[in-house]
């Protein structure tokens, strides 16, 4: 059932994002074309204005895509699960956690896709064929990394990617949890969701502060020697654990509300 939910969630959101991505790529190609045929030397007002316009539209579109990625993440959860469409979604024979996971995974994928598409359009506008050789250099760069840092270099990359994924999941789940808390109220559910977001922020800060103090207290006086390489790993792993811990807490909380405290208006 999770697979089917993912399929329909992708379908429901692709119709928003794919046309925008298409428009962005098209604008990048147009910009590239104008820049290529730009007459050198003397300035041509009409030409500058056209180029200026397409470049501005391109910029606005990138801005719009990122705002929309964020907005759609919230709207899909709020409208499709807790609005009228929730009457269908929550009468499907599907465990609530699958709804959360399908929404989260698809939102995260669109966020990543928006970043990748934006990068591609920048390449389209800025890169020459010569520059494309840069990509051929990647294996060599990795080899240099390995020479200098050994396996730690690769581990850092892996840790960084894990941290990004865990951080993204935590951020999305934080918002889902806040929206779910909002629906526990009979009135002013949106306002309550904002309140819940601020409240969870305060609570997590308090817990984190106490946690850091406790760990510091325990570690204090222990004869631990970690070098530069070790402390970098330690910091990365701590951050990953931080995201996983809070992400799991938000997930459990959201799942509890959606399965035990559901009250659709």
């Amino acid at each position: 059932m999770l697979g089917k939910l993912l399929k329909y969630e992708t379908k429901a959101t692709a119709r928003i994002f794919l046309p925008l991505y298409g428009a962005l790529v098209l604008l990048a190609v147009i910009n590239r074309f104008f820049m290529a045929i730009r007459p050198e030397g003397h300035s041509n007002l009409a030409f500058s204005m056209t180029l200026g316009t397409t470049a501005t539209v391109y910029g606005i579109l990138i801005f719009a895509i990122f705002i929309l990625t964020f907005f759609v993440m919230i709207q899909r959860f709020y409208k499709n699960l807790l609005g009228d469409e929730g009457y269908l979604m929550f009468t499907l024979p599907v465990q609530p956690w699958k709804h959360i996971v399908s929404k989260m995974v698809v939102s995260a994928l669109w966020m990543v896709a928006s970043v990748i598409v934006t990068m591609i359009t920048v390449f389209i506008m800025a890169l020459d064929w010569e520059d494309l050789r840069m990509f051929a250099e990647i294996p060599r760069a990795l080899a240099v990394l390995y020479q200098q840092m050994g396996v730690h270099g690769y581990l850092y990359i892996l840790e960084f990617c894990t941290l990004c994924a865990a951080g993204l999941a935590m951020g999305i789940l934080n918002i889902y949890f806040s929206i779910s808390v909002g629906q526990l109220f009979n009135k002013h559910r949106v306002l309550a969701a904002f309140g819940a977001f601020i409240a969870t922020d305060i609570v997590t800060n308090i817990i984190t502060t106490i946690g850091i103090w406790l760990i510091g207290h325990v570690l204090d006086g222990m004869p631990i020697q970690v070098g530069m390489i070790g402390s970098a790993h330690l910091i990365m792993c701590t951050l990953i654990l931080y995201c996983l811990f809070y992400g799991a807490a938000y997930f459990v909380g959201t799942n509890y509300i959606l399965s035990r405290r559901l009250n659709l208006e």
Partner: protein
Amino acid sequence: MTPILQCKVLGKRYGAKEALSSVDLQLGRGRIVGLLGPNGSGKTTMIKLASGILTPTSGEILIDGKAPGIESKSLVSYLPERTYLADWMRVSDLLGFFGDFYQNFNQEKAKEMLERLDINPNDRLKTMSKGTKEKVQLILVMSREAGLYLLDEPIGGVDPAARDYILNTIITNYSENATVIISTHLIADVERVLDDVIFIASGKIVMTSSVDEIREEQGKSVDELFREVFKC
């Protein structure tokens, strides 16, 4: 045999407002039941509790002996009083959707009913009138071979001709072991299809009876009795 629907001292409040209080009820299989009551009497709340999109404040509600969950949801076919379909979807997408998630969904039956009501499967819901959307929803819901149908105001928004078709659809499409609950205040229209009635007012069950009993013992139609019981 376990009753298909059972309420034990079931209660639901919204803040200070009590929508249902101490409802005790048992419904057998193979019946068409009218859940009748004035506006705001708790009909919708009761149906939403049975479908699992509301959580009871007190007591419990059981479908086929189990609390609402995955198993009850594959057994219950629920028609809400509002449009719950995403309006960018085509009717054909919805057929696929229902077929994907409900094993007891009968595609052929749905296509047949759509054709009968002149609804093009390639139309998007966005382009349809409210009445047509309601027909699509009803077709989807009645095309499931479910054990319990919960129909909240199924004929509220459609014209009288469509009402007849819909009611006929309901009585011809449920199997012998299935129970249909129809909530409405348009009693005269549904009376002829009902086996049993539940009168509900201010969150309490006022009366449960079979339609035959009302006719034989009281010598009245359900509509007449309703007007008498709920006289303003």
